[in-house]
């Protein structure tokens, strides 16, 4: 029982990253009808937002401390981050320690702007072009973004540790007689993504803005005939989708140190998730994300890998192929989407 719960947690953990990226992809696809191959790059940029913030917070000046000597006998140079000198050592250290959660606030405006610029500057011109062209140009954009990040941050992964308070191990399920040790940060990640997904759905379901967007997804032309500027709203949705991907990246930093190609690694799987969930279906994307994550976790157990070696590597693709062949529209895809 413990083992099963543990694998479900592992799956939710991985699955929430898939679900968040797939949700953004589907939002873009459902609203603008664009297949965005650069979405993985947005995830990566999000992760590097937290790297940048950590670097900014750690900007420091050097002072010479005459009371201490280094190993050569010279006076020791002490580096003090500006933050610590402004807010006092303790508050400053805490702020630095919490840089990843703080990066959420830092990343939201950045990602919104990045998404907005990307849509207005590039993708706007590709609505009328065939899907192949959209794939190609966003693929090129992904390469460019990736290389820019690589130029500034180098090719090696950069550690972004979680705050001390959240980096330990928690015991899960003590109340119902289970004893599972699980990293706190991963639990935070699951909770955070559930919150984000819930927020996105609530936004679409309960606000007037969301209502208009949903109407536009269903029938763009009629909404335009009613005199609503749907394009502007869709642009904002693109920004939101970028922000969701970015936040997923920010929070993923402590789990896996960000490197410049992390986006591409996730992108391929996220596409598979979108297709399994059903092109254009938001609940489908989320559901498929979690399901495939859990499936992958179970396939990674020793029992599974000894029965069929390497099953954990191919399970997602295998499932995707089976789903597409038996249910061509995916789990929750609707008729008429992408069937031209």
């Amino acid at each position, binding site marked *: 029982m413990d083992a099963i719960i543990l694998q479900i947690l592992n799956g939710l953990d991985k699955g929430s990253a898939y679900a968040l990226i797939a949700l953004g992809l589907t939002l873009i696809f459902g609203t603008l009808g664009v297949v965005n191959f650069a979405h993985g790059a947005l995830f990566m940029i999000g992760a590097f937002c937290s790297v940048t913030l950590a670097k900014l917070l750690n900007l420091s000046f050097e002072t010479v401390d005459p009371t201490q000597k280094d190993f050569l006998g010279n006076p020791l140079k002490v580096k003090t981050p500006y933050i610590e000198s402004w807010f006092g050592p303790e508050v400053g250290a805490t702020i630095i320690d919490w840089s990843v959660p703080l990066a959420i606030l830092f990343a939201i405006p950045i990602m919104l702007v990045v998404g907005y610029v990307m849509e207005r500057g590039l993708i706007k011109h590709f609505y009328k*072009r065939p899907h192949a062209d959209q794939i*190609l140009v966003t693929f090129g954009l992904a390469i460019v973004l990736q290389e820019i990040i690589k130029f500034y941050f180098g090719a090696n992964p950069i550690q972004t540790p979680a705050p001390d308070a959240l980096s330990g191990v928690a015991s899960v399920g003590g109340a119902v007689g289970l004893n599972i040790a699980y990293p706190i940060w991963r639990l935070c990640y699951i909770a955070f993504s559930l919150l984000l997904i819930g927020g996105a759905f609530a936004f679409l379901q309960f606000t007037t803005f969301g209502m208009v967007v949903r109407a536009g997804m269903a029938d763009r032309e009629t909404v335009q005939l009613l005199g609503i500027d749907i394009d502007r709203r869709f642009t904002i949705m693109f920004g939101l989708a970028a922000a969701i991907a970015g936040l997923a990246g920010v929070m993923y930093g402590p789990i896996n140190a960000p490197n410049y190609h992390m986006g591409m690694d996730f992108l391929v799987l996220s596409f598979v998730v979108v297709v399994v969930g059903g092109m254009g279906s938001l609940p489908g994307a989320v559901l498929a994300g979690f399901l495939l994550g859990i499936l992958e976790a179970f396939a990674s157990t020793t029992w599974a890998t000894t029965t069929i070696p390497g099953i954990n*590597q191919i399970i997602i*693709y295998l499932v*995707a192929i089976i789903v597409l062949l038996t249910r*061509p529209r995916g789990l929750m895809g609707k008729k008429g989407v992408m069937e*031209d």
Partner: protein
Amino acid sequence: MFGLTKKDLSLLGIVAILTMAAPFILNPFPTESAMAQFNAGYPDLMQKFVIFGIFAIGFNILFGLTGYLSFGHAAFLGVGSYSCVWMFKLLGYNVLPGIALSIVVSGLFALLIGVITLRRSGIYFSILTLAFAQMSFALAYSVLSNPKFNLTNGETGLQVYADDPQWFHSANLPDLPHLFGLSMRATHRMTLGGWEFQFNAGYYMCAIIMLVCFYLAIRIFRSPFGLMLRAVKSNQQRMNYTGLNSRPYTLAAFVISGMYAGLAGGLLSAVDPLAGAERMQWTASGEVVLMTILGGAGTLIGPVLGAGLIKYFENIFSKINESVLHSWFGFLPDGLEDFVITIVYPFVGKGWHLTLGLIFMLVVIFLPGGLIEGGQRIGRLFRGKKASKAGKSATTEPAE
């Protein structure tokens, strides 16, 4: 001649002359000069030009004609490489059985994948092929390299070991891939003044095979079959309404392009008998997409140009480092020199991917027909002004 029109024949002739004279053409700078690092006329790179040319020609038969964008063609390249090395391991270093097997195996593999993936079109097809290629990569990288059943040798890459059977190997044959005794590494060097030209056996074998492939591609483009594939691209729905089943045609195109990819993979192994799983990774599939689009999808010569350009960039452009830049811009005043170098530096050397990505984006945005279309536009511009320069774009004749 050869069942080609005069125009196609001259195109084939030009390509033949260019490939045969490549060791001269690609070596324009004397060995001792500062520009020598831009010489591309060394065997290793020339082989890559033609091999990836074959890969791109094959990809173009699928994407250029039918419009089906496959993001998983590297899988066939990898399968071809593995089959060829297996022939080396079992039969000996003669390249013919290896190349033959790599075509056959990748053709069968493409048939299997094609039957499944071609049930869908558009973006679904792209993602399905991507999924298959990633699955093949995972299989090759870890699953099929367990001690009980080691088909791919995993991370190390498949290679020939001393205790392999090599039934037809004999002592008088070279211990490297060869064609009936002629080693693929055999290189004849010719020194002419300050220049050194290298004529490599492996390169010429690959180049001749590429010419054959190119000829076949022209025939396919000009055949009723090719016309049918173009019809699929322009309006598949109408094709279906007229009562024609387009699936066999697309499947045939998929298998043919898979075989081209397999052949390219086999040749890669033939010139360097080591096959690794990274050849199957989806970035490799992306690369052939880049090549084809960059050169001009749907044109005959475009993909070959694109392949050459990208491989040139990868091998030559990536070598430009800071000191080279300093030597170039040394004539500028110091402050200006540093400024120029800071601007240029991110785009060259290790950052060549950035340049590639930017060029690719620009091509997709402004020149959907690739560099060929660019050449045509320039040609038209000249023709508009001066009729005498009309022949300028003759080498970049499009297929459409």
